[in-house]
């Protein structure tokens, strides 16, 4: 416990009565008032998440593009101007090192936003891949705070506090702006399935931005939301979580991320393995399950169909927006299709579930 890192807002979370948990080496807020309430608030108005535990890595130098292109499965060429891209980062065997966001910066630099728990591993991997290239790799995580304001009222709440116009900022686009007087990188991204923004700025300004944002948004329903709600929200939106739907032994193609794998962009780590998978067809694929019987499906629980084990749950939970128990699962390809009934083994008892199309939840767009 001694070497757990505290986010710049640690004291704020304690003062707000948050239940703190260890997450990726950090002490982070799991919940404030309750996961279900925070989840519903994000779906109906807006929630503010401290995600300062995420890692930020800058890649610069003459070969920065070349390095990023080699690292990620998506096409780094798409990350230009105000476009942010999401991408898996693979090992040569097609397993996933991490999944990340790539922001292009001035002067041919890139900002990579990675998962907290993977940051050190990612840094080592990126540096290893930079050998022989004219590229510098810098960890700016400690100096960077990240907040995510998510929900249908996010724009309405954030706009009056921001110098610069946000309404015209498209999905997965970024801009620079001042929020409450603080220089921020603002992107229309998130991990909840709702409209929203992520703000990156100097860590020392975090308490000021956090307090003022919460105060200003209060009457429109904004409140702090913790990692617990972030997880149920992303699960309903069927967004993958590293260590669950992605990992060294799961390829992005198995996880249903074909859109982010550009086999025709030239060579990159994992290309040959992923091309072979594409050619032969993946052996497993990610499906969505909704429980018919009672019981909460959890990671690792076996799934059977016709008495035969066909796969395992990767993530499962009660879904507050659906008021049902749901799960993502990796199953042997070709064994089941949408609408099929399977059984999830919960503590040795078989409970019925039905296979559904993903995502479980999709926000209604205006």
């Amino acid at each position, binding site marked *: 416990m001694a070497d757990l890192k505290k986010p710049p807002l640690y004291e704020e979370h304690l003062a707000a009565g948050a239940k703190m948990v260890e997450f990726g080496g950090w002490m982070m807020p*799991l919940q404030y008032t309750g*996961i279900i309430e925070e989840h519903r608030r994000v779906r109906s108005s807006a929630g503010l998440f401290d995600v300062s535990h995420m890692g930020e890595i800058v890649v610069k130098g003459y070969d920065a593009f070349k390095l990023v292109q080699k690292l990620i499965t998506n096409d780094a060429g798409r990350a230009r101007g105000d476009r942010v891209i999401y991408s898996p980062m693979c090992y040569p065997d097609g397993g996933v090192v991490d999944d990340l966001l790539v922001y292009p910066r001035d002067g041919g630099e890139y900002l990579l936003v990675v998962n907290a728990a993977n940051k050190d591993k990612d840094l080592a991997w990126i540096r290893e891949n930079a050998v022989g290239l004219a590229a510098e790799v810098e960890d700016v995580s400690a100096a960077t705070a990240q907040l995510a304001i998510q929900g249908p009222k996010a724009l309405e709440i954030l706009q009056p506090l921001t110098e610069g116009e946000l309404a015209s900022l498209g999905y997965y686009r970024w801009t620079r702006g001042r929020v409450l007087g603080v220089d921020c990188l603002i992107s229309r991204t998130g991990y909840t399935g709702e409209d929203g923004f992520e703000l990156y700025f100097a860590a020392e300004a975090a308490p000021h931005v956090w307090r003022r944002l919460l105060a200003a948004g209060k009457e429109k329903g904004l409140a702090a939301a913790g990692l617990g709600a972030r997880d149920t929200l992303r699960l309903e939106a069927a967004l993958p979580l590293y260590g669950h739907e992605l990992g060294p032994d799961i390829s992005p193609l198995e996880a249903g991320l074909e859109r982010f794998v550009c086999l025709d962009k030239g060579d990159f780590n994992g290309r040959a393995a992923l091309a072979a998978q594409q050619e032969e067809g993946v052996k497993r694929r990610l499906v969505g399950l909704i429980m018919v019987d009672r019981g909460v499906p959890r990671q690792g629980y076996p799934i059977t169909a016709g008495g035969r084990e066909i796969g395992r749950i990767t993530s499962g*939970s*009660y879904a507050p927006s659906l008021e049902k128990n749901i799960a993502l699962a990796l199953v042997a390809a070709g064994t089941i299709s949408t609408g099929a009934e399977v059984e999830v083994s919960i503590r040795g008892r078989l409970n019925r579930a039905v296979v559904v199309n993903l995502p479980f939840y999709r926000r209604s767009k205006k």
Partner: protein
Amino acid sequence: MEFPANLYYSKDHEWVEVEGNRARIGITDYAQESLGDIVFVELPQVGDELAAGDSFGVVESVKSASDVYAPVGGKVVAVNEALLDSPQDINADPYGKGWMIEVEMSDPAEIENLMDSGAYQQLVKEEKGE
């Protein structure tokens, strides 16, 4: 947080209300608060025999599943079936509507191994690092 004086408490955060040989069992206010939103409960069948320390059910919050242990042994004589449809009663009213089972105690002397309200309150303070 409530610690009713008429109840006995286990170190696993269950409470016991004794009436004659009958013991009503649930999880404490501290336990429900630590778990967060409860979304599912698995309970035993009436007639099941439990020894003190046996796991008799599971309480699941949004985040996790936790076993619940019998503070005293005996035969299950009643089960709060209403919890299957409204497990959130445990959050709202842990000592009332949130009760889980009743057992006919096989050895009422086992009550002696449990804590009173004051001792349990002390344990909770220690667990919370206060």
